[in-house]
């Protein structure tokens, strides 16, 4: 297996505060990798650093064979990286269809018709404004938007946040189907059992450093470690 995403010793800052203290991680082709950790451990910052939104001050990021460390976000996206931001970031003043018009389409299997087939609710509500959607519909829209870029890697930042259990199941089903499509996925989650359930491998961040890395199954079996590192239990 070859790594499609590789972060080496990434340091990132918000203003003067040093958030990431040398994070290294890898995502291999066709893998779902989950990134766990307590609130404030640096999960979202890691995603933002990978995406070029909070560019790393030190260290390097390589994705799909390109050194993207200093690239602006739009170039990274166009390379084939789909990003579902924390809090979904739907454009509230645009309709569903207009939200889907923002990403410039790249050639590939994903187009509007296919996205609507995956999320029929978005098709039904395509004329509604983003702010009129339910949380679950917003999440679907947030996942649908980068799919139109036909990405090879998806970065998902807490897709289950604030959603009803049934909707969470639906979202996780979509994440699993991404792997079947040959996508590689990096998944940040608060919901530890949920993410360990779908992931192949896991990293746990603590205080801006990688505190654990290993297979998801091994981490799920070690309840004590999960409790200690991620602040949650792996019991589902």
């Amino acid at each position, binding site marked *: 297996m070859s790594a499609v995403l590789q972060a080496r010793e990434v340091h990132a800052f918000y203003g003067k505060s040093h958030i990431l203290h040398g994070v290294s991680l890898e995502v291999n082709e066709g893998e779902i990798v989950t990134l766990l950790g307590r609130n404030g451990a640096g999960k979202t910052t890691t995603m933002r650093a990978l995406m070029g939104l909070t560019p790393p001050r030190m260290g390097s990021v390589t994705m799909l064979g390109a050194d993207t460390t200093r690239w602006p*976000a739009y170039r990274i996206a166009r390379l084939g990286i789909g990003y579902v931001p924390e809090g979904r970031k739907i*454009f509230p003043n645009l309709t569903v269809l207009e939200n889907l018009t923002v990403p410039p389409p790249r050639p590939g299997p994903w187009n509007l018709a296919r996205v609507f087939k995956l999320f029929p609710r978005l098709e039904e509500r395509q004329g509604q404004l983003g702010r009129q959607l339910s949380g679950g519909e917003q999440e679907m829209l947030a996942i649908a938007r980068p799919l139109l870029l036909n990405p090879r890697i998806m970065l998902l930042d807490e897709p289950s946040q604030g959603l009803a259990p049934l909707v969470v199941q639906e979202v996780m089903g979509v994440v699993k189907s991404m792997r079947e499509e040959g996508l590689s996925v990096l998944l940040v989650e608060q919901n530890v059992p949920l993410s360990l359930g779908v992931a192949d491998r896991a990293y746990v961040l603590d205080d801006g450093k990688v505190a654990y890395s290993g297979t998801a199954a091994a981490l799920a079996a070690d309840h004590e470690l999960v409790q200690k590192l991620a602040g949650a239990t792996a019991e589902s």
Partner: protein
Amino acid sequence: MTQLLLFNAFNGLIQGAFYALMALGLALILSLNSVINMAHGGFLVIGAYLAYVFAPYVGFAGAIVLGPLGAAAIGMVVERVLIRPLYKRPDPLYTLLLTFGLALVIQDLTRTIWGPTGLPFEVPQILASPVSTVFFFITGYRLLVVALVAVAVIGLFLLLRRTPLGIRIRAGTLDLETVSALGVNIYMLRALNFALGCLLAGLAGVLAAGVLGLTPPMGNSLIMPSFVAIIVGGVGSLVGAILGGLLIGLAAGITTTFYPAASEAVIYLIMLIVLVVRPRGLLGHEGLFE
């Protein structure tokens, strides 16, 4: 008296149409580029003088098109070279000072190249004559101004509503970072948006030149009322910018009938009343095109 009132009201409406065009461009640039473009009057002057230069070669109609396009092209270069390096500084003071300086430079360059005295902008004879004897003040040219402003406004709204570029501009006014993360080149987006604002300023300049003639400081008398139009209409609302522009133009025109000395002051009086009674402006709750 009625005819004088109508005359002044119509004049005011024309003036208001210029304010509205200017205010639209200012509002676009303010919402996406986060720049308070003090040089907007400069781009009006550029559009007007370029039209004056082009007119002998391409005719009146060609000049009306090429003048604004020239202003847009120069605006794009200015954005790329001078403004883009300042985006990473969150304080809007930097771009405000930069564009303020730029306004002075443009005005003095205009004066150096074309001289300080006014130049006439020739309007074809057929447009210069009144369309009726009763309404002697309604010339074909003034009707053309109204029509072209309407076309520009409708065109802008269609652009923002129907094209990917316009949709991305609207998305970017609220969350530029997410637009970028979705693969949109936001440097290009901001450059095009700045050029679009300058295009509208250039159009206002060309059209105003036919009414007022060309002078290097011609932008100065239009820029402050255009800022007022945005405040009156509501910051962030494009419809508000149009409404604000027409409203203050009309009010100034009507005031001229009764007390000419107050025709400029009334603009600021309206702003004062709006700020006291409804600080967000007439349509301030609407945001950009909601």
